[in-house]
């Protein structure tokens, strides 16, 4: 038998929609972002770590987080890359334009990191420790994409 005859496959297309509840902490985080272009974290009363995005409990101290603090919009690059491999963006179904910069960003005042795009794609111009600032969209809808990207700051 030819190879073609021995490799019959059954196609299965799965179209699955989810409606994730963002919850109480997520609702406040995204509302502040949408209405005031403000990034908020929640501080642990014990270890004083500030979690961004905010969450109900500090995983280390197991204490409830009730104190809200503003963080950013400036921060520091903890790690970065420039993505050059083209792939289909699951959020849009379209190919993501490459290249694009991507970074782990420690916002000022935060103890955890936010992951987001950079406005730079030239690897020679990006470095760990570099200062960045969030660029917000004019029209915001209450999602992480309300931040367009992070802009590298002149030093």
């Amino acid at each position, binding site marked *: 038998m030819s190879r073609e005859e021995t490799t019959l496959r*059954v196609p*299965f297309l799965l179209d*699955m929609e*989810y409606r*994730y509840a963002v919850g109480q902490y997520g609702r406040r985080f995204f509302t502040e972002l949408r209405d005031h272009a403000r990034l908020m974290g929640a501080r642990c009363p014990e270890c004083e770590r500030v979690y961004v995005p905010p*969450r*109900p409990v500090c*995983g*280390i101290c197991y204490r409830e987080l009730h104190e809200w603090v503003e963080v950013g919009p400036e921060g520091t690059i903890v790690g970065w890359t420039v993505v050059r491999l083209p792939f289909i963006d699951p959020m849009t179904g379209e190919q993501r334009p490459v290249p694009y910069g991507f970074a782990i960003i420690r916002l000022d005042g935060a103890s955890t990191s936010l992951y987001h795009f950079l406005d730079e794609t030239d690897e020679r111009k990006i470095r760990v420790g570099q200062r960045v600032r969030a660029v917000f969209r004019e029209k915001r809808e209450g999602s992480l994409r309300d931040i367009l990207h992070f802009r590298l700051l002149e030093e």
Partner: protein
Amino acid sequence: MRRVAILGAAQTRFEACKASLAYNELVYGVVREVLDRTGVPMREIESMVTASQDAYDGKTISGMAINEVVGAYLKSEAKVAADGLQALLYGVARILSGEFDLTLVVAHCKESEGDPAAITGLMFDPFVQRPLHLDELTAAALQARRYCRKKGLTPEDVALVSVKAHRQALKNPYAQRAGTFSVSDVLASPLLADPIHELEAAPRSDGACALLLASEARARALTDRPVFIVGVGNCTDAYWTERDLAEAGALQEAARRAYAMAGIREPAREIHVAEISARYAHEELMAIEALGLHPNPVELIAEGRAEFINPSGGPLCGNPPTVSGLVRAIEAYAQLSGEAGARQIEGARTALAHGAGGICGQNQTVVILRRE
């Protein structure tokens, strides 16, 4: 041999849609309640077993998204992607190993966030079954028809289960669906897939639950009214197309193992409360028989002698998948610790919790609990 006790438990109210809570908030609520009830601080709990399903959560490795709220940072955590009662078995095994004294068992599921028919459809064979749009309901209807035919049951006989379940659920503050229905009300509810009517099928639910397991030594130090897990049994049957759906061989075998471990010879006499994972009314009849609780389940229910079976109302009154099996153990624990409120069965000393998973109950779990 080491013994394992349940120190405390909590569950959310079952609701069709808990839209205001994210998964981590839902789970934190029940874990917090367990800590508050038992007085055990999270830092003393050494291991966690969680139960959830990636397909319902829309997220792979779904256990990792809740690890901070179950207190799992830098601790031993494992996820069971099956019925929640299997997570309990895993937690018991962890303590019996001698490695851990305290283990938290947690389950969560929100059917409202995904598409349950599509998700249960993924259980089916992709070559000869999925192209036919089979889902769990269709399979259950085929089983119900086969079982009723074999036992000579009428639609009215099966509807009795629903009448009892919804009546008992009136006393359960966690129930999503409860009410005083007659047999004709049940049979007048919409036919979902012949012979199953809406009131004979578990509703779609969101919910979470948690319980804390302890070694006997630790339990005795923390409570003077321990409830012990004295028997466990688990058994898997053939794929649903490869067996007679009117038979419950895997459940009989799981029960045999659990009874042997617990030293139970006459379950009909020795089991005072049974919480059964019947997602469809006919499954309760099958389970009563397979568990040896009564040879004629319809007669038992018709004569009003089945109040000790699913005093909570069972899954027909709220059934978040995965959570449902673990809730059976929590209800059994509540009965034995005298915390079952209006649904309390007086004098219960030995209780049975039953969990099922897979198409037409391919996988079966039985747990026996006893108070001193």
